[in-house]
């Protein structure tokens, strides 16, 4: 009976392969070879990632995408082609065409010419249209601070609207095997295969919300299958061999979170709940370009070992706005550190901090911000930890001090004031092997909203 019902209920399996640019390189390979899947979803774009890519593109116009994606695809392309697994990935960053060209070249070198189609989703890039938008009264106010974009317009480096699932769906409908996008939402990459497979409509709000919840659950890779999981963490098995999550989705919007057999990690209601609340705002209004999902309607149930069933998700109509991720040049920063040893490690680090601050003051250097942390004592939990820490007995403390300024020269001068403390400051100091810290340009994030009708997604299909 169960088997019969299962055969009548088509299931689409969407596997998470990367939770950010820099995630485990083995994960996508294991996802495509470790068991049956239909789609491989790879999320590369954290908020700060676009600014990193923008930096890279400004140095070399052929870059600006997740370069790891290309050798990774080279490794799995034969398996993808053989098993008919499709890929959705926002690896294109700020340069999806260059990314697609590199993947196409790799595919041709593998003898896959004529056998693959690559979909390219663009239209998210608003940089060239910013002045026009501002002139037409779109202020692109910072969602956090309320400031209008014109305050920093001359320092803007990139501006990308978050596109949703629908342009990815269009690429899949046009038979793309690999869909490479720019700034498509993390959740849209998982939702799109469901819309495509099940024929969901643009106003199926509950279904779109369900697919969005599925996307949110697996967009951080192993963070829902045992990675970075606090609950009962010591008993999570075999993290060395952690299985990345797979959504087994059904046409009615219910789905299971699972992973390949024989892998490590753990999928439980408690662990999935940790991921559901990750980076959560108002849970009743999880806003994406595709819908507004209500996380207070989610029902979770343990449906077997390493299998959590998700149901009940309700959604509401999408808003008429898109979020825009704007990167702008903010200034400079540098962080230096020294390590002080027992006895009185904390006292020595505190004394060194005072000496350093006095010297910076005497040099007349002004900073927008200066932050001293004492790693081993207060760097992560601040005064909450200091209250109970055995400060006199700590075996070592790292003084970690950072400065931020619009003035690069001031930051540069700061970097030269750390090393002298080894010989002319408090004793029992070491840990300077990394050398002098380097001033780093801060490319900061400016979230804003723009009217949806101002953004036109573009889908191209190229034959390899």
């Amino acid at each position: 009976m169960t088997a019969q019902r299962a055969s009548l209920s088509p299931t689409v399996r969407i596997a998470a392969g990367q939770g950010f640019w820099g995630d485990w390189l083995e994960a996508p390979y294991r996802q495509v070879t470790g068991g049956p899947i239909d789609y491989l979803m790879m999320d590369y774009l954290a908020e700060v990632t676009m600014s990193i890519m923008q930096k890279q593109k400004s140095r070399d116009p052929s870059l600006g995408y997740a370069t790891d994606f290309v050798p990774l695809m080279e490794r799995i392309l034969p398996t993808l082609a053989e098993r008919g697994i499709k890929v959705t990935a926002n690896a294109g960053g700020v340069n999806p065409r260059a990314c697609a060209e590199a993947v196409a070249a790799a595919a041709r070198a593998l003898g896959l010419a004529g056998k693959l189609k690559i979909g390219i989703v663009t239209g998210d890039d608003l940089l060239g249209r910013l002045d026009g938008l501002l002139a037409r009264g779109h202020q692109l106010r910072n969602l956090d601070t309320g400031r209008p974009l014109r305050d920093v317009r001359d320092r803007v480096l990139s501006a990308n609207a978050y596109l949703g699932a629908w342009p990815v769906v269009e690429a899949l409908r046009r038979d793309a095997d690999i869909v490479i996008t720019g700034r498509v939402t993390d959740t849209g990459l998982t939702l799109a295969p469901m819309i495509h497979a099940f024929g969901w409509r643009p106003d199926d709000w509950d279904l779109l919300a369900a697919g969005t919840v599925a996307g949110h659950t697996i967009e951080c890779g192993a963070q829902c299958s045992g990675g970075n999981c606090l609950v009962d963490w010591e008993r999570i098995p075999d993290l060395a061999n952690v299985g990345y999550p797979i959504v087994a989705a059904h046409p009615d919007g219910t789905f299971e979170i699972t992973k390949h057999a024989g892998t490590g990690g753990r999928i439980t209601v408690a662990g999935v709940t940790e991921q559901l609340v990750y980076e959560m705002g108002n849970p009743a209004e999880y806003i994406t370009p595709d819908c507004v999902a209500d996380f207070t309607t989610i029902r979770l149930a343990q449906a077997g070992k390493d299998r959590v069933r998700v149901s009940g998700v309700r959604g509401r109509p999408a808003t008429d706005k898109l979020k825009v991720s704007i990167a702008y040049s903010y200034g400079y920063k540098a962080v230096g550190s020294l390590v002080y040893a027992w006895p009185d490690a904390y006292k020595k680090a505190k004394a060194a901090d005072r000496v350093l601050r006095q010297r910076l003051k005497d040099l007349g250097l002004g900073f927008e911000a200066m932050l001293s942390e004492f790693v081993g004592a207060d760097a992560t939990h601040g005064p909450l930890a200091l209250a109970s820490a055995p400060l006199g007995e700590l075996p070592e403390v790292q003084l970690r001090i950072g400065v931020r300024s619009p003035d690069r020269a001031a930051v540069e001068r700061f970097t030269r004031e750390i090393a002298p403390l080894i010989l002319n400051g408090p004793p029992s100091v070491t840990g300077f092997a990394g050398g002098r810290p380097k001033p780093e340009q801060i490319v900061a994030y400016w979230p804003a909203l723009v009217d949806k009708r101002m953004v036109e997604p573009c889908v191209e299909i190229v034959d390899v």
Partner: protein
Amino acid sequence: MRRRSKAVKRGRGRSGRRRVPLLELAHARSGDKGDTANVGLIALKPEYYPILVKQVTAARVARHFKGMVKGPVERFELPNLGALNFLLHGALDGGGTISLKTDAQGKVLSTALLRLEIELPR
């Protein structure tokens, strides 16, 4: 897990009120949105959720993080998941790439919240 529930039972068994760290009743995960950190707090057992709702108020969490969070604290309830979500505004020294903090993305404010002491009901 067994150890934790025992600690809680011991607390209930006493005639006076007993203070236990939130760590014994809940787990948590935290992250960032710009300069705002969020901490999702999840009851380890369904029966602990009402205790969290009653005692881990936005005002209490704001006091707990005094000096670490510049802006207001908001709280949202997810009874379906036995969870509370807190938004700590102005917790990340500007957040993202601007922040000078080790924990620029608020990843371990989760366990910082679990240091909070809870009074168990009689």
